[in-house]
């Protein structure tokens, strides 16, 4: 269950961004953590990584490694949100959207975004601890799960 949940998170998050890579790059740029050209590259690659990671978790291939990479990515995203919060930037995290700066009158919801990411991190943690789950490629390849 944790595996499918985390898989869905990645596929949805990446899928929403994959249709407009330029916007995804702008979302990364809104964090103002790197030069625009670097943000564009990160913004272009990241949605594909997210979808690929989601698919790997979905089929259940090398679950522990995929969960580990998921955890690392989530920690990086959370660090980004915290730093945006600390600097008082008013941005949309771009987690499940193309993000960017918020218009006047919109307040960022950093606390909620962080709480949500923490939940995802817990999912990844469960998978790191107990990677073996039913109906996965790992199970098939290794024979019957013990």
């Amino acid at each position: 269950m944790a595996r499918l949940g985390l898989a869905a998170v990645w596929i949805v998050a990446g899928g929403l961004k994959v249709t407009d890579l330029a916007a995804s790059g702008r979302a990364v740029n809104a964090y103002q953590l790197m030069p625009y050209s670097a943000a564009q590259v990160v913004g272009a690659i990241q949605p594909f990584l997210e979808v690929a990671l989601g698919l790997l978790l979905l089929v259940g291939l090398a679950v522990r490694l995929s969960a580990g990479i998921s955890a690392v990515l989530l920690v990086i995203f959370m660090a980004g949100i915290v730093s945006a919060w600390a600097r008082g930037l008013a941005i949309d995290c771009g987690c499940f959207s193309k993000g960017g700066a918020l218009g006047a009158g919109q307040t960022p919801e950093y606390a909620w975004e962080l709480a949500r990411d923490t939940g995802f991190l817990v999912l990844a943690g469960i998978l790191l601890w107990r990677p073996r789950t039913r109906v996965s490629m790992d199970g098939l390849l290794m024979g019957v799960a013990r």
Partner: protein
Amino acid sequence: MSKGTKERAAARRIVEQQRAAEKRRAVTVWTSIAVVAVLLIAGVVGYGLYSSQKDDTASAATPPGAVDDGTAFASGDGPVTIDIYEDFMCPVCHEFETSSGATLKQLVTDKKVTVRYHPIAILDRYSNGTKYSTRAAAAAAAAGAAGKFAEYHQVLFDNQPEENSNGLDDAKLIDLGKSVGLTDAAFGDAVNSGKYESWATKVTETASAKGVTGTPTVLVNGRQLQNPTPAELEKAVG
């Protein structure tokens, strides 16, 4: 059962366990390699698409009459430069135009300022996939090429579509052009063919690279106004 058979059975079990462990190790190694490969391929695909999109904007057609490296249209020729970054889909930009448009016009008439409008497209996601922000910015470029940017800019905001609608279609964009005197076929053709859409993308990229992350962004002589109101504008212009 003799002692010998027992030992042989035990030895067989150990060998089997070792084989199974070896198999698990091999599976772990290969699946890990597969994961890394899949992620690498995903990265390369993303980078490839990004590069091809970048090439598109590099070859963008610049509309005649555009200023600031061909990324804006100017009104007036006063000494103070006001840069305005707007998205035609952005409601707050509409509010800004409603509240400050007259002030800007007056400053231009008084020959105090040069207003450079940068029509950027960061809200394409609010028009159900029709990319209204890009199409509107491209149409504004076509209007600018015919010397009617200010007029067309005004009617686009007067007729701003709701967010999360389909936006105005190309026929409506052309009709609005006619209402401000853009009656020749060149304007309609430019809108229909999306002639300046890659230009709109280029303007957006240039703005992002300069740190513009939202609309409206208003700079007076390069300094951003946090709260662009008529009073703030006049104060900043001096």
